[in-house]
């Protein structure tokens, strides 16, 4: 049995197993994507924040503009008032009416634009009150002017018609402008902070991505290196293995050759003395015949010289001894011939050729037809048969032995059936020879393949060579033979062969 050498198996990426590597890479990818998503989210948020600031700043500018417009309107109204008191011209009254008519709308506009700020709302209300106060104060003066009493009006109302009110008005609008300026500054500050935050977030994301990226590259490089190392180691081991197999095969071939030669020499050298044993046994027989003639003559002519022992020796002892020697040497001769045949078969050069197995099986069955008909056994060859590239003689010998055995060991006195079938199975070609004969006890399943060993009732001629020969042949063809059977349950012999056999040089002669 050829055993493969036990070599240390390579530890594939011992530090970083494939599984851990996969998990690590997945984690890196997930982390990278998360960071990117976070960065994108931050960018979206920053843009929306910016838009909001822009809107708010715009709003603030609008408010400031509205306030300063109100201021202008108020100043214009005041100017118109003074002009009325100074000149009493209708022209200025018209201007006053137009300007003061615009003020409530402007106030409403300011109230709208500053609605979000309660402080401004309060200021707007005060402005409204101041405006209404001013309007009501000037109404009397305006009535006197209309009545032609301009001087009275000017005296009563004064040129500085309502300095307190104007001062208050200016203070309030100034405060409102300041408030809007403050808010603008606040928003600018806030925007700067958001901007910084976004920059920081981007920087952090960039850093994380850089770390993940470089980490991944490092891990991949290490993994790749590990793989390359493992591959190299595997290649080296493989080479070593091939070398080991080659060496073992050479050893095995040498041992096999030696055994073959040994068998050959032994059988030859055993034959030589056997020739002598048989030859001189015959000579002995002839001599015994001569003695018997003498004893017979003595019995007639001189019975007194004849002893019972001499009589017995000539009549039974000598023929019996010679008979045993003869049968034993004949048996020995058969055994030696069997060994010789086996060794010769082992030295035969195999000549593989494509075989039509169905035809091969048919010819095997045909060559056994006489025997199978005599035994009442039917040989069935199931089709289709897988094809085989192998040595014809060897294959014929294997299956002719198996089918012959199946026929030979049919149940006596009953009609039997032998089935031969074949199939392909995982790159092997498998043939089965199944019979419904007397079967083989399971304890003998190994023994039947040994040379000169037989099993069951010894009522059939044979030396116990057939299956030993079959197994040796099957082994030589790179195959395996197994037996499945139980007593009285028939037997199944299964031969598993490679689909083709490589021509080997055979044993040296």
């Amino acid at each position: 049995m050829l055993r493969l050498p036990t070599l240390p198996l390579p530890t594939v990426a011992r530090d970083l197993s494939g599984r851990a590597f996969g998990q690590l890479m997945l984690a890196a990818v997930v982390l990278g994507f998360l960071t990117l998503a976070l960065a994108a989210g931050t960018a979206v948020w920053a843009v929306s924040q910016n838009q909001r600031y822009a809107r708010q700043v715009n709003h603030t500018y609008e408010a400031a503009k509205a306030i300063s417009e109100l201021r202008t309107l108020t100043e214009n109204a005041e100017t118109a008032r003074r002009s009325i008191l100074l000149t009493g011209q209708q022209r200025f009254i018209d201007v006053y009416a137009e300007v003061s008519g615009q003020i409530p709308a402007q106030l409403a506009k300011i109230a709208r634009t500053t609605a979000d700020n309660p402080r401004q709302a309060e200021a707007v209300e005060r402005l409204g009150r101041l405006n209404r106060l001013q309007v009501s104060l000037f109404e009397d003066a305006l009535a006197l002017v209309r009545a032609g009493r301009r001087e009275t009006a000017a005296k009563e109302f004064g040129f500085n018609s309502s300095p307190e009110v104007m001062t208050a008005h200016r203070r309030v609008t100034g405060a409102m402008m300041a408030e809007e300026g403050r808010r603008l500054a606040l928003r600018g500050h806030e925007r700067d902070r958001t901007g910084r935050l976004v920059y920081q977030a981007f920087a952090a994301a960039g850093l994380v991505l850089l770390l993940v990226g470089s980490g991944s590259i490092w891990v991949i490089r290490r993994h790749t290196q590990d793989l390359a190392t493992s591959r190299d180691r595997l290649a080296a081991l493989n080479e070593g293995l091939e070398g080991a197999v080659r060496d073992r095969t050479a050893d095995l071939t040498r041992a096999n050759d030696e055994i073959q030669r040994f068998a050959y020499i032994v059988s030859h050298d055993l034959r030589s003395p056997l020739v002598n044993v048989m030859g001189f046994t015959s000579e002995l027989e002839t001599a015994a015949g001569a003695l018997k003639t003498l004893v017979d003559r003595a019995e007639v002519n001189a019975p007194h010289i004849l002893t019972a022992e001499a009589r017995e020796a000539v009549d039974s002892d000598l023929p019996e001894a010679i008979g045993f020697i003869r049968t034993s040497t004949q048996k020995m001769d058969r055994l030696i011939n069997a060994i010789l045949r086996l060794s010769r078969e082992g030295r035969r050069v195999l000549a593989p050729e494509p075989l039509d197995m169905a035809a091969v099986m048919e010819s095997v069955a045909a060559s056994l037809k006489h025997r199978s008909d005599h035994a009442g056994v039917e040989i069935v060859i199931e089709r289709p048969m897988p094809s085989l590239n192998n040595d014809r003689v060897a294959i014929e010998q294997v299956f002719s032995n198996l089918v012959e055995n199946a026929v030979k060991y049919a149940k006596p006195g009953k009609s039997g059936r032998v089935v031969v079938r074949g199939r392909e199975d995982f790159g092997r070609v498998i043939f089965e020879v199944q019979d419904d004969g007397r079967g083989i006890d399971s304890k003998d399943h190994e023994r039947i393949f040994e040379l000169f060993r037989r099993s069951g009732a010894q009522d059939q001629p044979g030396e116990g060579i057939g299956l030993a020969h079959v197994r040796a042949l099957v082994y030589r063809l790179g195959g395996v033979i197994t037996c499945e059977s139980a007593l009285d349950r028939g037997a199944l012999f299964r031969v598993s062969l490679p689909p083709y056999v490589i021509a080997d040089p055979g044993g040296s002669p």
Partner: protein
Amino acid sequence: MTTQQPVTIVMIEDDEGHARLIEKNIRRAGISNTIRHFTDGASGLDFVLNAGDGPAAGGPALMLLDLNLPDMNGVEILARIKAEPRLKRMPIVVLTTTDDKVEVERCYDLGCNVYITKPVEYESFAQAIRQLGLFLSVIQVPTADAGGAR
């Protein structure tokens, strides 16, 4: 024997028993020629090549050769004799247990005249040797002197 000089039978056979059985059966066939028996290859070869009363000196001879000898292979002896101009016409009968096809072919290639496998069955053996004896009694053996054939 029709020649003037009687033919010497040179037998190289390591097994005494075989030699005895062969001699017995040859005698039974009525052959009375001298049989020179050698149990090893070297002395047999020495006799054939050098002895004054052997084929080297011109006496007609015939050899019975066994292949499995203790000191050398019979095939080697066959080759040596067939390579010797004075001896190459001497008939050689290979009488051995080997029935290997390759061996038989090799012997005939080297110039052996008859190849006989010793049958194990004694009756066949005895008969084969006796027939060989009859054969020996009728064949023409050339004198070893490089003269005419016949």
